């Protein structure tokens, strides 16, 4: 938080976060009004229900944390779906004590490959990660023979994903840990400064002596790692890995990062915003499912909300020179 001037003004990065937070409150109020009128109860305000929603949101939140690092350096990672799935499938295939390390290693390895391709081959990330996604899909199809894998998640994976400690879902602790790491990187480490610098102008960062390629590789590696963590957790949550388990996480993770005020072209944005963005999307989804909204209406509302939020605070500057 920057020092507040005498007049209470919000910095450019904080305004989106505040508005998004207000929107979350609005969703909660609207959803509660609906349930109160229809069922005479207010499940949205019960801590248990909220914790349960946050547990589901943890998977998206972990993916979004990695995605944010990549978006901050004005790149994008489209390989999330099959990185996540590959990590989950490999983890369940290996099983035993090595399940989780193997899952994370798969994610990390894919991330490093993405980073090397983008940083050293200078292929636009949009297309390189797309290619890597296709390769991972091919590898997994060849590995599973096109069928759902028969292997099950290990006990530890299940416990991490759906167990509780002190009444709080374990998945939330994992999300918290990932969040802490990202916040420390962005706020307290030179690496964070480099990330923002590259996002603003890579050439300038390079001239200032930043190893921009190294930082790019690190960001992609961390993004792959978070996808691996999410994959391992998701496999634990649903007891097994399955085809297409990563598909619902790509676009929502980008949306969560952007709704949270991170600029899609990089260089600007706070991690708190991404957290708020994830919570907003998860709550919106759960309110819509309470309302028994059909999938069609959900998609329309989902798209409408993203546009509305960005119209309020995500508008770019006019090009005039």
């Amino acid at each position, binding site marked *: 938080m920057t020092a507040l001037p005498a007049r209470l003004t919000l910095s450019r990065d904080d305004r989106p976060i505040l508005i998004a937070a207000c929107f979350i409150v609005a969703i909660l109020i609207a959803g509660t009004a609906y349930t109160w009128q229809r069922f005479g109860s207010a499940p949205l305000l019960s801590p248990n229900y909220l914790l349960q929603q946050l547990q589901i949101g943890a998977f998206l939140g972990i993916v979004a944390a990695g995605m944010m690092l990549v978006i901050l350096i004005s790149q994008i990672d489209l390989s999330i779906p099959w990185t996540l799935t590959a990590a989950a499938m490999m983890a369940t295939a290996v099983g035993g004590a090595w399940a989780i390390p193997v899952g994370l290693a798969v994610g990390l390895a894919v991330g490093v490959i993405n980073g090397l391709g983008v940083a050293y*081959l200078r292929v636009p990330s*949009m297309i390189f990660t797309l290619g890597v996604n*296709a390769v991972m899909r091919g590898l997994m199809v060849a590995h599973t023979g096109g069928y759902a894998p028969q292997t099950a998640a290990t006990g530890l994976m299940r416990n991490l994903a759906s167990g509780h400690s002190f009444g709080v879902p374990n998945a939330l602790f994992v999300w918290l840990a990932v969040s802490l790491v990202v916040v420390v990187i962005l706020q307290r480490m030179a690496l964070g400064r480099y990330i923002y610098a590259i996002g603003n102008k890579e050439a300038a960062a390079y001239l200032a002596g930043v190893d921009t390629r190294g930082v790019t590789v690190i960001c992609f590696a961390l993004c792959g790692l978070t996808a691996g963590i999410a994959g391992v957790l998701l496999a634990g949550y649903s007891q097994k890995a399955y085809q297409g388990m990563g598909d619902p996480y790509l676009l929502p993770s980008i949306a969560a990062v952007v709704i949270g005020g991170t600029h899609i072209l990089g260089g600007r944005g706070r991690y708190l915003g991404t957290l708020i963005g994830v919570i907003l999307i998860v709550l919106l989804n759960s309110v819509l499912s309470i309302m028994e909204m*059909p999938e069609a209406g959900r*998609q*329309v509302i989902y798209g409408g909300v993203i546009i509305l939020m*960005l119209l309020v605070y995500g*508008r770019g500057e006019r090009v005039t020179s």
Partner: protein
Amino acid sequence: MADNLAIRLRQNFAFLTALALFGVIYALYQVAHPKGFSSAVLVQNGNEVFTLAMVAMAQTVPVLMAGLDLSVGALMTMVDCFASYLLSGAAEGTPLALDVAGLHLALGTLPGGIAGIGLGTVICLVIGALAGLLNGAIVVYGRIQPIIATLATGAIYIGIALFLRPQPGGKIDDDLNWAMTNSLGDFASTVHIFNDGAAPWFAPFAWIPTPFVLLVLIALLVWVPFRRSVTGRTVYAIGSAEGAAYMSGLDINRAKIAAFTLGGFFAACGGLFLAIQTSSGNADIPQAGAYTLNSIASVVIGGTSLLGGTGGAIGSIFGALILRMISFFFRIFDIAPLLQPLFEGIILLAAVSIGALRVLRVRNTLELFR
């Protein structure tokens, strides 16, 4: 003159590479195919490639101005679902109504027969163009980055598609399906022109697949005039340097809106053909996503830079052809189908990494950061 040619060659190097690559692998394919160089094989290839080629053209226009349209697959799917209602060709006409939130709004009746099909086609194309216009308006007046604006509108279009077709279904006129997805000879005999396709002068053309003819017509009648217009050149200028284009007095807003509208029109052509080909409408979300991603790949393979300013929609057609060709090869060489996605991925990755060769040529590392 020679200089001029050299410059043109250099400017179109990526496109010419794609063209040569396509020529070589397509010739290989036809030679290896047991029924190679026959009309039937061409027709099959044309049908399989048309929709992706149109979606790739749709993607090209925003990419030329350094934007990206993540809604092309969704837009295509939405038009596909509209077409499954509007092109049924029922003789007694098709009553149209909107059931929303318990209300039943009658929208009149679409006439039957040829008039109805013609009107339905026009409505579908207009819907696509309007959706593209919406994308453009949000990007220009909302000043939201294209990639994120179209991510959101894509969700909206898929929502509308799901509303129209919660389950796959609908029907397309059988004659229309037959006429559009076969050779020109079948087209002529279905619509009863050129003496039912038996006219002597028509015989040399009768083998040509209709989808290829449609592709060429759309490219020549829509894309080429657009590219040569001031608006089209403005699109290229925006991709090269938006600020410079603005300072040169070009109407940037109009060009951006026109580019997205044209993209919507192209995607609508693709959706229309997909509906005609499959004779139904299907709001398939994974399929829409796959089309969007494959369109980006086709654009890049076809020689258009994702940074904007160079390339063109014709190249993207060949990009789509090359991408689809991979699966053609799998059919004739009898490779285990399970390996197909892996090969597709590796070839895609290799194709886009070829562009990395320029890294070896830079003399100053700063040149990399553009």
